């Protein structure tokens, strides 16, 4: 076993150390080896706490005699001298265990306390604690705590312990009071914080409650205002039917009649121009209404007063979809008798009635062309229509007020109430308060919803956009059916489809819509499929484009065409004929045989006027001719950036990260490899870029799957080194290794099997390795020699050794 690592240990300490070793002489060699083994086991776990069973074994061995204990101390000290803080931490913990047990151990440790402190608490500046930093920090604080405890417990019995404690306190300025108090203080601090938090919570709660009580009236007022405006614009059937009941005029049983009457009775705010839409005002439900008759209740209903029936009947006409639905179902039986239905119902499911006492009813119904009491009437209340209120000089004030109040509700009040609710629920307010606030919120939301459905808000927006095209907008409205109108435009692109799918309730949808919707979606999907051939990403149903396609095919069309224009791949086939400059080969395109190389006149003499008489123009050679015929075309291939790495396995277990196009200078030709860096094919294939790229991608994704990027041990190690906090680089390293081993061959180097954090790993960085390569003596020498010889050659070529040249 190596005992002395530190060369700074002087002679004296070495001698003292040898004294310690003597204790093993009196021991049974069996015990000695056993103890050595156990301490090795205990200290190389790398975990911040000791293994209980091993420790027990060790203590049992120590218990047999004082010499065992002393030898144990020797072992512990030798472990403490290891240059690894995790080993030291474990060793110091073992020391603590024995210190609390054995007098002999206490005595010997107290004798060597100076060394012990130097190794565990960094009392000597010349001996800093070894890495990893996290363990070192933990060891330091833990040991100080330990010594505090020892002092409290055994200080009276061991003089040197007291001296050591005083030394730490006085000379090293370690505040033991703080350590003692820290545990208490920590608790106090936490409690204090908790108290503070609660106080703040209570304050906030009180504030919110006060606000609520102050502003509740205001909110209610606002709500009431909005509601009354709504009433004025769209009087609820209840209101104006009350007039009917007063007049006691029997209603005519035709729907037409009814409609007319309503028209007559309509408050003046109803503009004549809106008369086209009067149908809409009553048939607010976009969706078919299915009425299931329950025959049992019909007699009672017959006896119901007319007024009530009327009321019930007209409740149908309430414009809120959901309320209309529910009420319809509630009152479906009431409306059976004298309900005026636009008989556009698609289906009438009539079933026979067995009960004799309903004959009258049947008769009654038969008057309306209904067969029996047991039937289902599905009422399609006409063309699903959105009703609009147009602003006229009559209702302008009301509309404006409504707009204003709806704006305050949506901008001001609703967020406020939501925030209140949040705070209330967080701070744990009383149930009543929360309930009241929820009620408030529901009311506000109801009003807001109504306003939105009235299209007041959205209309205004559109008006702002294009003031001229009001009418067109109105005409466009029906096309937008099926939208959730409250989804803002910018969000619709993102969420439109999903929202619609989730929020679309089947009972809201008309049969026709039911039929058309899947058709539509299918269409869009098919369209996507077509597109898919061109652009791959649209094929992904989760992608934005696909979603867009389903929501708004035209838009996507535009988008995609725009995109396709920008895409260089597609632009090739868009009738872009390659342009070529005119050349000889084009000039003689028809009969290339006639092509002649221009003859060159060569003058032998360069005299200005003295020229030889006859000069023979050289016959152009075949070579020149071919030069003319060849056309130089610059390679117009696309530059493809190198996306693949070499990925050859390296001795450190990682894969080569070099990105070379064809050949890695270290590992030769770049070939496809599997995730361990083994060649995928036995015969070394020249890499085609496409396969390489895909291979690289796939493998990189696989790498990701093995370990998440934040668990990269090297990165973690670096961070740990900088911060001194344990992030578990050792663990992830192990994990990685395990995975590598599990996957295949891995790097079965059979390294150390210990669980300690590898402290050299942080030094083994790519930078370091490159540095080692570059700055090693041999290479520097070689480079120097080359440079020197180049210099020498330059000087020699310039006759540098001759005086008159040497300065040039």
């Amino acid at each position, binding site marked *: 076993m190596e005992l002395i690592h530190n060369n700074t240990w*002087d*002679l*004296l300490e070495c001698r*003292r150390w040898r004294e310690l070793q003597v204790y093993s002489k009196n021991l049974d060699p069996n015990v000695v080896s056993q103890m050595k083994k156990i301490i090795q086991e205990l200290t190389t776990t790398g975990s911040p706490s000791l293994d209980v069973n091993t420790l*027990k074994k060790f*203590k*049992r061995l120590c*218990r047999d005699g004082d010499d065992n204990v002393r030898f144990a101390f020797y072992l512990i000290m030798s472990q403490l001298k290891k240059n690894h803080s995790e080993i030291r931490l474990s060793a110091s913990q073992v020391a603590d265990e024995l210190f*609390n*047990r*054995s*007098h*002999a151990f*206490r005595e010997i440790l107290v*004798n060597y*306390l*100076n060394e012990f*402190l130097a190794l565990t608490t960094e*009392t000597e500046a010349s001996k800093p604690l070894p890495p990893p930093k996290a363990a070192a920090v933990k060891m330091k604080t833990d040991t100080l705590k330990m010594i505090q405890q020892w002092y409290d*417990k*055994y*200080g*009276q*019995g*061991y*003089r*040197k312990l007291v*001296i*050591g404690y*005083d*030394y730490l306190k*006085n*000379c090293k300025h370690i505040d033991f009071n703080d350590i003692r108090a820290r545990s208490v203080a920590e608790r106090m601090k936490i409690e204090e914080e908790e108290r503070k938090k609660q106080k703040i919570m209570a304050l906030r709660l009180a504030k919110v409650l006060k606000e609520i009580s102050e502003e509740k009236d205001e909110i209610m007022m606002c709500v009431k205002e909005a509601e009354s405006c709504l009433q004025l614009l769209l009087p609820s059937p209840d209101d104006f039917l009350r007039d009917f009941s007063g007049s006691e005029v029997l209603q005519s049983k035709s729907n037409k009649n009814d409609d007319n009457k309503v028209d007559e009775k309509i408050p003046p705010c109803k503009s004549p121009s809106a008369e086209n839409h009067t149908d809409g005002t009553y048939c607010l439900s976009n969706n078919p209404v299915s009425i299931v008759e329950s025959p049992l209740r019909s007699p009672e209903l017959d006896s119901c007063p007319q007024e009530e029936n009327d009321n019930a009947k007209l409740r149908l006409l309430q414009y809120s979809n959901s309320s209309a639905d529910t009420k319809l179902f509630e009152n479906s039986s009431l409306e059976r008798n004298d309900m005026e239905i636009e008989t556009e119902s698609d289906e009438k499911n009539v079933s026979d009635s067995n009960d004799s006492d309903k004959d009258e009813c049947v008769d009654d119904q038969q008057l309306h062309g209904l067969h029996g009491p047991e039937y289902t009437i599905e009422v399609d209340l006409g063309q699903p229509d959105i009703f609009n209120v147009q602003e006229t000089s009559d209702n302008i004030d009301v509309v404006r007020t409504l707009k204003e109040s709806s704006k305050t509700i949506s901008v001001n009040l609703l967020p406020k109430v939501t925030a209140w609710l949040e705070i209330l629920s967080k701070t744990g307010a009383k149930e009543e308060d929360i309930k009241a606030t929820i009620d408030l919120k529901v009311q506000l939301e109801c009003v807001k919803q109504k306003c939105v459905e009235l299209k007041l808000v959205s209309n205004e927006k559109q008006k702002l956009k294009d003031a001229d095209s009001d009418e067109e907008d109105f005409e466009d409205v029906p096309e937008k059916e099926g939208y959730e109108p409250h989804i803002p435009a910018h969000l619709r692109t993102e969420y439109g489809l999903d929202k619609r799918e989730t929020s679309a309730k089947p009972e809201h949808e008309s049969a026709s819509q039911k039929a058309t919707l899947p058709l539509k979606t299918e269409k869009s999907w098919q369209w996507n499929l077509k597109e898919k051939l061109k652009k791959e990403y649209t094929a992904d149903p989760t992608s934005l484009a696909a979603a867009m396609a389903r929501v708004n095919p035209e838009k996507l069309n535009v988008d995609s065409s725009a995109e396709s224009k920008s895409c260089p791949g597609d632009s090739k086939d868009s009738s872009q004929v390659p342009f070529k400059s005119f050349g000889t080969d084009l000039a003689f395109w028809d009969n290339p045989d006639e092509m002649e190389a221009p003859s060159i006149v060569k003058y032998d003499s360069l005299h200005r006027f003295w020229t030889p008489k006859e000069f023979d123009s050289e016959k152009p050679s075949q070579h020149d001719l071919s030069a003319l015929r060849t056309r130089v075309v610059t390679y117009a291939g696309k530059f493809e950036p190198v996306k693949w790495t070499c990925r050859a396995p390296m001795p450190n277990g990682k894969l080569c990260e070099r990105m070379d196009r064809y050949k890695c200078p270290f590992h030769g030709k770049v070939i496809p490899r599997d995730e361990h860096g083994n060649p995928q094919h036995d015969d070394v294939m020249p890499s085609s870029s496409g396969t390489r790229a895909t291979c690289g991608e796939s493998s990189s994704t696989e790498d990701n799957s093995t370990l998440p990027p934040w668990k990269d041990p090297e990165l973690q190690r670096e961070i740990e080194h900088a911060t001194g906090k344990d992030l578990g680089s050792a663990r992830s390293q192990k994990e990685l290794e395990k995975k590598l081993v599990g996957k295949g061959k891995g790097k079965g180097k059979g390294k150390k099997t210990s669980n300690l954090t590898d402290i050299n790993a942080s030094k083994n960085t790519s930078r370091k390795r490159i540095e080692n390569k570059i700055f090693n003596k041999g290479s520097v020498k070689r480079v120097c020699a080359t440079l020197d010889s180049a210099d020498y050659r330059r000087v020699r070529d310039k006759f540098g050794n001759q005086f008159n040249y040497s300065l040039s």
Partner: protein
Amino acid sequence: MSVQCGPNNPKKNIIQGLAYQSAGLIAPIQLQREINTSFVRQLELSRHKEVEATDAGAVNDLHVDTTENRYLLSGYSDGSIAVHDLHDLREDEYNNGEVDSLTYKLVCTVSAGSRYAHKRSIETVQWYPLDTGIFTSSGTDRVLKIWDANRLQTAEEYSFNGIVHCHHMSPVATRHTMVAVGTDSSVVKLVDPRAGSATHSLRGHKEGAVRAVQWSNKDEFILATGGIDNFAMLWDVRTAKGCLMKMQDNKKKSGYHRNTTHDGSVNGVEFTPDGHHLLTIGTDQKMYAWDTSSGKKLAMRYPTLSHIKRRSVKFCLTKSGSENFLFIPTGSSITSFGLVTPSRVQRLYGHYNNVNCTVFHADGQQMLSGGNDHKILVWSVRGDLDYSYYVNERRALAVEKMARQEAAAFGSGEQNEEDHLSRSIVNFQVQPHTLDTWSDDDEDDTEQNDVRR
């Protein structure tokens, strides 16, 4: 005839020695020396005694007065000075009476803030040899101060050009009161307080500082000095010519090396009690003994030291034993060995940082040491184990007595009394701090928890 007072059974040997003495076989002084020697051999860190702490810094020098052997003078690195009374050993109250810790009480201090105090670290302190009314101190603020010990004020101050490494007053001088001062300069100054100035200069060291000065303990005019020119010199202050002799080996050394006292600067010199020999300690981590009459090196091989830095070494030599022991601060330990049997080296561990100085207190058979851990530690015979036995015994008796009284007060029978007695003694014997406490959870449940000493 000699008596061996070994550490094995000192009591028996003492009794044997006493028997020899009464038989007239050995002289009483001989026995005394033997016993003293045996005591010094058994020095350990005291379990009970401590010196009252001051809030000053590292302890740089200690000195016990030679007239009464009572007052411990200590100089600190922050310039303060403290005086402890070595006869005033009191039990401490604040330790709950658990351990009988005895403290040497502080008599007086010159705190660092005082206007008389040294501005910087004190290097040397010394009592006036004939009286405890005066002491001297010098330090790195280049000043030698002569103090009135009763008023704790400086009577005289002498400034020098460099750091005062050491100073010494002759313990046997009757015809002069000169203080030899070793400073950063190579000239040794002799300050005469009667004249009020440095009267003599001893030129002889070649260059650099003088790190050790020591008057002979036999001849009042003989002075030994050691400098960083690697020489230790012997002077007769009456001669103006130069040094009496340089301590140097006459053996030819190979090569360039000069014949110097040490191969490093001489940081400590000390006369043996008989005055015939001079011990020198150098930064070559060696100690040599020289004959003061011939200047020859003795053939004795002393153990190699360590941690002798470039600083004056404040070590001490016992005087009254048949064999005299050296206590040399070496790092965090104190190396101790006898002059006759230097191979038996003892190392005393107790300080947590460098030990700066040691001083032997002959009356108490104890050694005191000061170090950078701001502590003055007491090293006594067997670490006062005898005393702790005594205390335990006394306490047992006291407990017994108390139990008896209790029993008497109860007025109950004999049996009851014995019960009480045994119980109380058992209670007393359980000393929680120094017992093994192997707990049950380490072993099987069937095993009993054995409590062993």
